[in-house]
């Protein structure tokens, strides 16, 4: 089976763990629980009728206390860049992380997730943020781990992009078959 490594990247408390739990376990907890270290969850999904095992690396949120180590991204096939729409500065953190990632690993598919869209009335980011970054060719989705809105879609879009990337390169990259 093809295994693809996906990293969840973003500031703290943007909902990375909640997105993974919603996707893998179909549950959501309202209370914020900080993530320490890295937790790897797995879920097998059909992509283009092929079962693909997604290894979801839920990496602790970046802030002044914890900086994301680039070594965690080694072998990554794609990543979800998560922003909390209600906190403007989390977009800055996401963009800075994205810069770091692209300097280290080139041409890795990613999707920008503007999370907490169930709280859109409290958003601090500009309403057209999705359009702004979509215009740059990025894949952007408004998601809510709470309601589940676009969560499966986010992983699905990324999986398709990762497989397309894998198929477009002669070597199968760092995916592994079991």
């Amino acid at each position, binding site marked *: 089976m093809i295994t693809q490594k996906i990293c969840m990247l973003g500031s703290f408390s943007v909902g990375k763990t909640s997105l993974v739990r919603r996707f893998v376990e179909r549950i959501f907890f309202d209370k914020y629980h900080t993530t320490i*270290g890295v937790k790897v969850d797995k879920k097998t999904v059909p992509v283009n009728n092929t079962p693909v095992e997604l290894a979801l690396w839920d990496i602790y949120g970046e802030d002044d*206390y914890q900086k994301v180590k680039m070594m965690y991204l*080694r072998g990554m096939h794609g990543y979800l860049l998560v922003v909390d729409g209600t906190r403007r500065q989390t977009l800055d953190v996401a963009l800075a992380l994205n810069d770091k990632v692209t300097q280290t690993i080139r041409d890795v598919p990613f999707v920008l997730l503007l999370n907490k869209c169930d709280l859109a009335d409290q958003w601090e980011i500009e309403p057209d943020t999705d359009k702004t970054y979509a215009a740059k060719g990025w894949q952007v989705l408004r998601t809510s781990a709470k309601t589940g809105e676009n969560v499966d879609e986010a992983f699905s879009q990324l999986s398709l992009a990762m497989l397309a990337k894998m198929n477009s390169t002669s070597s199968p990259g760092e995916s592994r078959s079991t």
Partner: protein
Amino acid sequence: MAPDHILESFLAKEGFALFEHLGNGVFRPIGDFPPWLARTWGAQFERSATVRLGQHSAFLENFLVDAEEFWKAKKDGSANSGNWIERGEAGDQTPLEAAALWLDGRPVLLIRNFLRSFGEQKQWLQTARDSLLAHEQLVREIQKKEILLHCIIHDLSQPLSAMRGCFNCLTAGDLPADLGRYVDLGQRESQRQEQMIRGILEAFSGELAGQMSGAEKAADTVDLAERARHAVESFSAAFRGKGVHLQLDPALDPSRDWTSIGDAPRVDRIFGNLLENAMRYTPRGTAVTLGVVEKGNSLLAFVDDEGPGLPKGEPADKLFMLFAKGKDRPGKAGLGLYFCKMTVERWGGTIGAETRSRGGSRFWFSLPRAQSLATASKNAAANQTPPARRLPAQGSQERGLLEKGSKHQPAKETATPPARRNLAQAEKALRILVADDSEINRELAMELLKTRGHSTLGVSDGHQVIEALKKQRFDVVLMDEEMPEMGGLEATRAIRKAELSSGQHQAIIGLTGNATKEDEEECLKAGMDGFLSKPFDMHKLFQTLESAALGASRIASETPSALKTPDAPAEDVAAHLQRTTAGNEKLIRSLIKSFLADAPKKLSAIRQAISRKNAETVGSAAHALKGAVAIFGAPHAVASARNLESMGRAGNLANAVQEFQALEAELQILERQLRALNAAPRPKSKPARPARRPRRKTPTGGAR
């Protein structure tokens, strides 16, 4: 038990698992296995003589790449994996961390279950992040409150100022004693409301309340150079962390006086916001420079960075707007720079940003020097005009005289009461174009100017100014600096450009909400002749506009005949008749006789037509009267008749009654002049004395 085994047992009990690296991802366990290992990776794990650890944990597989590099390089110390959570077969979660090291000449991997410290570590991190989230929330709430208070200051106070201005206008007019009491009451209550707003602000935001009444309070002073130095010290570490060198401008001379209006905590906050902004956009390996320079009577503090500069095609002002964020280079909540602007402007300063010619951006703010502020306050105190007070008895007396005047009784010379003395008619009635997009401000200025005897036309943007000037001449333009479509500065520049070929000079006085030196300089640089700040003092308004008109008449290269437009308010009736009839006394008397017989009929026809709402007749009768009146000059009467004619032709008699009253009053003056002229034995040598024109309430908008 051998000492080695004792140590291995101890390590296992403490949760450590040790493996010797045999190469190619294969490991041999050393000593006892800790209990968590079988729980996490299965019982068969313990039975194996060698294991491939990477097969049991994706995280470990990733770390082993770094570990093998470490062992290969034979480095000292250890390579650490960082923390991860390993999920066991039963779904339980074990916090682990791994380290690669050399022990006794052997490459060893040590995996530790840090469950004991995990809870503690999680607790403090959770607390820290909860506090951070709570702080962010609190900051947002405070900022919302401050914005709300800001709205109270600006939005509620502005109409209040207009109301007070209206009361001033009423005070300047002639009111019966009972109405005067209502005006006094209104004035008192509006003042009380202003005090109440201030009281609320003092209760909920001392900072903003202080800023609201900043002009009335003695402002604090602050050493800008000292604060700049302090900011550099405070932010140096953060900038170093970003690989950016933060420095104080080497040209800043500490021995000079850098004291400006302001206070240290808020200046620190401004510097902080500007530096945070610079840090966000400045590339690694560059420098950010902070300094202070002199700029006229102000001090200008700046933060220079070597980043990409301001976004092209976007006005710098936009950066300082509420919730403004740089396009594609977003900042935080878009409040930091907005608060800088709010604070600086309340101190009478300005703030801005520009792309530097050598690359990078300059964010700056300028504040009045402490010394210049003291001087300004002193001058303001010395020049302060005592508030005009209406004297009800005298006011009503004058009103009575005017009412009598309407019954064709001659005007009587009366002593001008103190309040009225300031509002005496201008020596020369001017035609003034008032450009302001705020309807209430425009109306207020127009009403005040009419009270002074000037005629006005109101427009609401720069394009309309230019159009109005094409159609008719104005002695002076009162031009608001900020208007939609085309602002005052832009309109002035366009007018001045056009004057290069015409050789004329239109007097223009700028009007702005900001009373800073920089604003004045901006106005003058654009080509304005002077500058007034809102809210304006009416005496200052009259003085500035009348002086400007006088100055412009000197500057203008117009020919004398060009000045004699039909509306020119120069000649009196006698002189006009002398000129137009070449001194034919008989003709003059005949004209007067005919007019005095005919005008009341024409006036009556207009009155009747208005009462019957017959617009067509109003138009034709006013047209006829206009022609009759024009024989005697009488520009104001002609203007009123023309306005009525226009109203009639347009079929809109909404303001016809007021205009008719104005026309009637003008005709009373003319009648008195003509009767006096007719009665005089030698009108040629002794022209009739011009009678005082009554102040009148007229509909706004029409040029006279």
